[in-house]
């Protein structure tokens, strides 16, 4: 990460004056900064400390400090849970398919959108394409429920084409759940995710394209040999972030679309944490699962970062 401090010097106090004098000179700035630090300590660091309840038997009556230590009991319990395999399969399955399809699609979309000649037309497509990003998952859930209902438009079309004999209740069938999750996610975020690539593409020097034209490159070749390599580092960074987030299922989306009928395909680790913690009040157990998830996510981030550093010299740190 690049240094976040600006090169500006505090006026009214040279770096050689004593500490207390400098502190006094910057008391206003210190107040502003410390307000932020206090907020972070309360809302970021106290919850991190709160994770120690995963090694304790916490209940609402006692404070965190009073709760008795129980070692790794909760972690063992998770490993013995019969839901474990299902939860991991759903989390990884949905995420990996999203990574496989949902990650490259915005890049492809950006590459093709970049080839649209008319600036106004291009702008219009862009504006339309990120409209869905601004809809909430709740509203999108409502749209999907309308489309996929037994009397919904999807069933109507399939029935009239005689592709199915009777209406399918898609949201009640586990076998359709992943498809619904992944395609609706792509629908919502395709245009939005493409912004960053379009911005990167706009930074490519036009001379590169001119040189490629002189060498006789066609449109596809220019895309492949000029544009794509030029945005490689952007792609790598976003890929590292995507890999480290593999265990983060899109919780807002899952919670809206899941129900007890599709549970076998929709119970992902984030929902499991929510369910065991908030719904069943097993605070310590839920925190233990959170901790396991965090450790695995950290390992994934480090691996992705190292691999990217080796392969194409791009890394987060």
């Amino acid at each position: 990460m690049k240094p976040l401090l600006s090169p500006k010097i505090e006026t009214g106090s040279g770096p050689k004056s004593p500490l207390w004098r400098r502190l006094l000179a910057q008391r206003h700035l210190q107040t502003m900064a410390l307000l932020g630090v206090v907020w972070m300590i309360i809302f970021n660091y106290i919850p991190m400390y709160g994770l120690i309840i995963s090694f304790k038997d916490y209940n609402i009556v006692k404070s965190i400090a009073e709760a008795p230590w129980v070692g790794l009991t909760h972690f063992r319990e998770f490993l013995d849970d019969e839901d474990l395999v299902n939860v991991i399969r759903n989390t990884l399955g949905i995420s990996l398919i999203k990574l496989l399809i949902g990650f490259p699609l915005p890049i492809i979309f950006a590459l093709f959108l970049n080839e649209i000649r008319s600036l106004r037309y291009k702008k219009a497509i862009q504006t339309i394409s990120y409209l869905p990003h601004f809809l909430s998952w709740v509203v999108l859930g409502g749209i999907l429920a309308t489309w996929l209902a037994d009397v919904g438009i999807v069933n109507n079309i399939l029935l009239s084409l005689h592709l199915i004999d009777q209406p399918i209740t898609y949201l009640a069938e586990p076998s359709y759940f992943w498809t619904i999750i992944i395609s609706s996610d792509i629908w919502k975020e395709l245009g939005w995710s493409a912004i960053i690539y379009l911005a990167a593409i706009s930074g490519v020097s036009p001379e590169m394209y001119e040189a490629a034209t002189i060498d006789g490159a066609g449109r596809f070749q220019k895309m492949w040999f000029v544009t794509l390599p030029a945005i490689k580092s952007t792609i790598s960074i976003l890929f590292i972030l995507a890999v480290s987030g593999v265990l983060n299922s899109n919780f807002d989306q899952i919670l809206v679309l899941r129900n007890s009928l599709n549970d076998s395909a929709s119970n992902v680790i984030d929902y499991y944490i929510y369910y065991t913690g908030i719904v069943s009040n097993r605070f310590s157990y839920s925190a233990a699962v959170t901790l396991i998830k965090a450790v695995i996510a950290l390992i994934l981030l480090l691996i992705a970062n190292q691999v990217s550093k080796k392969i194409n010299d791009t890394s987060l740190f």
Partner: protein
Amino acid sequence: MFALKRKTKGEALFDIVNNLIMLCVCFLTLYPIWYVLINAFNDGNDAMLGGIYWWPRVFSLKNFDAVFASPGIMQAMGITVAKTALGVLVHVFFTAMVAYALSRKGLIGGKFYILLGTITLFFNGGLIPTFLLNRDLHLLDNFLVYIIPVMFSFFDLIIFMTFFREIPEGLEEAARIDGANDWSIFLRVVLPVSMPVIATIALFHGVYQWNDYFAGIIYVNNPDLQPIQTYLFRVVAQSSSNQMMVAVQGSSLTKSVTSQSIKLATMVVTTLPIVFVYPFLQRYFVKGMMIGSIKG
């Protein structure tokens, strides 16, 4: 000049295919939204027969009348407007303030403060410890739970700092010679020239506030404090469409509306404000996203 640049056959074909692909993408993006819109503007009982694909068959504003007449829905809408307006104001001001302080060089402890913040980008306590904290702070069933726990974001702070560093030093020095202290420089010099980045962060946080339904689920039991998205969630996800009907009963409109048609109208009402705002802000957020994500 233009005429000289003749397209080859391959180029022309490429352009045609590409334009077709883009038209498909646009259609696929817009049609599901359009479908909801036309059905919301159609008479409820008639819509149940299905077959409305391009245009309302029996045009009616009754669904919207029912939505606006329902005290529950309007109360939830009011909460959402309040939490979005106040949330954006507090988030933008507080985050910008801390960012301004941290962007000054020579700030004693500055590097340490930034380290503290950077750690929060990668680690957090997660759902349960956060829930317990908010409970201990008496934020449960409290409007402030929508504001205080999200009034600061280190990620947004980085975007602010990147912008603040580009502000010419002369501006600040001139104010200092005029006797301004750091507060007045921040309020009267830095904030007014930072409108692009303020618009970006305000839009991001505004969308978050407007669309968030989860805080309403886990922290709030009192139905009077529930935002519209939470209200809609309970109806959509738990498909207890009866709740909607109960909400509008007594409005004497129930004959031409159904729970489904009210649901669609509520979705439209919920979404419209944001759809109106974003085209005006888009020139800002493209830049904002660039600063925030890549320049690492």
